[in-house]
């Protein structure tokens, strides 16, 4: 009887090491959306809910509240197609980033 400890395979892919923090951050914005949309251009409501709940609970208070998220989706849905496009998603992230930026300013007041 053979001992199978871990049936695993590792496949290392060396990626470019020359991306800056900011470029990596931008890439993260993209990959988060792409993974949730599973290759589609838009997120349907369910995928959007999932994206928010799994990824944005650190930056948003009601990330787990489905009715709050539905409201937010309605607010983002510029073309009212019931889906969240990448652009609409970026608008949301921009809003969250801006809020974070203002929170950081408040806790570190300018002394000029």
């Amino acid at each position, binding site marked *: 009887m053979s001992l199978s400890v*871990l*049936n*695993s*395979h*590792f*496949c*290392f*892919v*060396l*990626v470019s*090491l*020359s*991306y*800056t*923090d*900011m*470029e*990596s*951050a*931008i*890439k*993260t*914005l*993209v*990959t*988060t*959306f*792409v*993974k949730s949309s599973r290759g589609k*251009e838009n997120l349907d409501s369910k995928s959007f809910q999932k994206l928010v709940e*799994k*990824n*944005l*609970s*650190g*930056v948003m208070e009601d990330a787990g509240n489905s009715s709050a998220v539905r409201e937010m989706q309605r607010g983002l849905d510029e073309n009212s197609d019931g889906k969240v*496009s*990448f*652009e609409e998603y*970026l*608008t949301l*992230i*921009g809003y*969250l*980033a*801006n809020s*974070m*930026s203002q929170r*950081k*300013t408040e806790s570190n007041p*300018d002394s*000029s």
Partner: protein
Amino acid sequence: MFSADVCISREDEAYIFGEVMVTVKGQSSQYLLRHAALQTQKVIMEAAISTLVTQFKTYAGKDGSSSTLSKDEFQHLVASQLPNYVKNASDPAVIDQLMGSLDENNDGELTFSEFWQLIGKLASKQGGFSQ
């Protein structure tokens, strides 16, 4: 140092970082890894957003108003932080054109919101999304 992706093959894929795929069979290890991955997933976007905010503030703080980017500060940010995504950042015409397209109220300074338009454009380009 290299970045590594841990992708758990279940109905929900949970990614940690980067590009390596690790497939682990066996219930308990699968659960632990998935749990760790989901926990990590929560912080990934927060970290990315935080990076974008912090970098903006770092460059905006160099002179004048610390909550907006002057053209000079913008040029420094683009040249240092976006070398792969924006080519020819040392060309003043490129910076002029870019800044012009972002500066909505034409006051010669970029607020975070105005600057975010650039992030949006670069992200859309990265992802192959038409704007």
